[in-house]
């Protein structure tokens, strides 16, 4: 896979829409993979005891799905140069996360800047203020 060519990318171009349903099994697997076993992610009773509706997904799991969405458009992980976002609302097990991205600039070096983000299928904007930079091919 190669990155889109800088000459073919225009401001306003969008990342291919990308959705994933996140289950408690995914969250448990992410806790093992990342080493973050905070009980708010894996223990529903504990999560409710601290005022949450139940367990919530790790923000970095959501960000990983967003990175995957952008990297798919960008022709691979190596072309994703940076990514930042705010974790605005929790994503709950069973929710589908829908990732989006739009090109806002392309510089002379062939690096595209995208505004990126994610919503849940319940309508919550879970990842906001997102920015990514992608190396395009020449």
């Amino acid at each position, binding site marked *: 896979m190669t990155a889109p060519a800088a000459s073919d990318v225009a401001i306003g171009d969008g990342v291919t829409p990308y959705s994933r349903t996140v289950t408690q099994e995914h969250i448990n697997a992410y806790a093992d*993979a*990342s*080493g*973050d076993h*905070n*009980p*708010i992610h894996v223990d529903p009773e*504990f999560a409710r005891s*601290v*005022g949450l509706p139940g367990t919530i997904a*790790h*923000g*970095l799991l959501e*960000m*990983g799905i967003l*990175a*995957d969405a952008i*990297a798919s458009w960008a022709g691979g*992980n*190596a072309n*994703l*140069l*940076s*990514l*930042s*976002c*705010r*974790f605005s609302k929790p994503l709950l097990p069973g929710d589908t996360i829908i990732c989006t991205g739009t090109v806002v600039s392309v510089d002379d070096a062939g690096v595209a800047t995208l505004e990126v983000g994610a919503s849940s299928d319940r309508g919550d904007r879970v990842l906001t*203020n997102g920015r990514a930079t992608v190396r395009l091919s020449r």
Partner: protein
Amino acid sequence: MPPTFAAVYCLGPTLAQLFMDPEVGIDLAGLIHGEQSFEWPAPVHPGDVIDATAEITGIDSKRGMTFVRLAMEAIRPADQTVVCRATSLMIVRAPA
């Protein structure tokens, strides 16, 4: 390597030191990950040994919450290459 695997080699080892330190006394149940940024100047490969460092760049308290800003850098000592720069905003809620 998935880009956000930096959670393991950049954030994990540094944040764990801060949040697991009994002297710091943070209640994990009240900890919220507020914001995150990553830059990847060079790719990481399976088998790489990576050193990560972090510094606290800001602490603010408002409405009973403490906002801790951190900056991390991950270096591959074998070739002295910076492989990741990251910033995190962690929000610590007061115990209920």
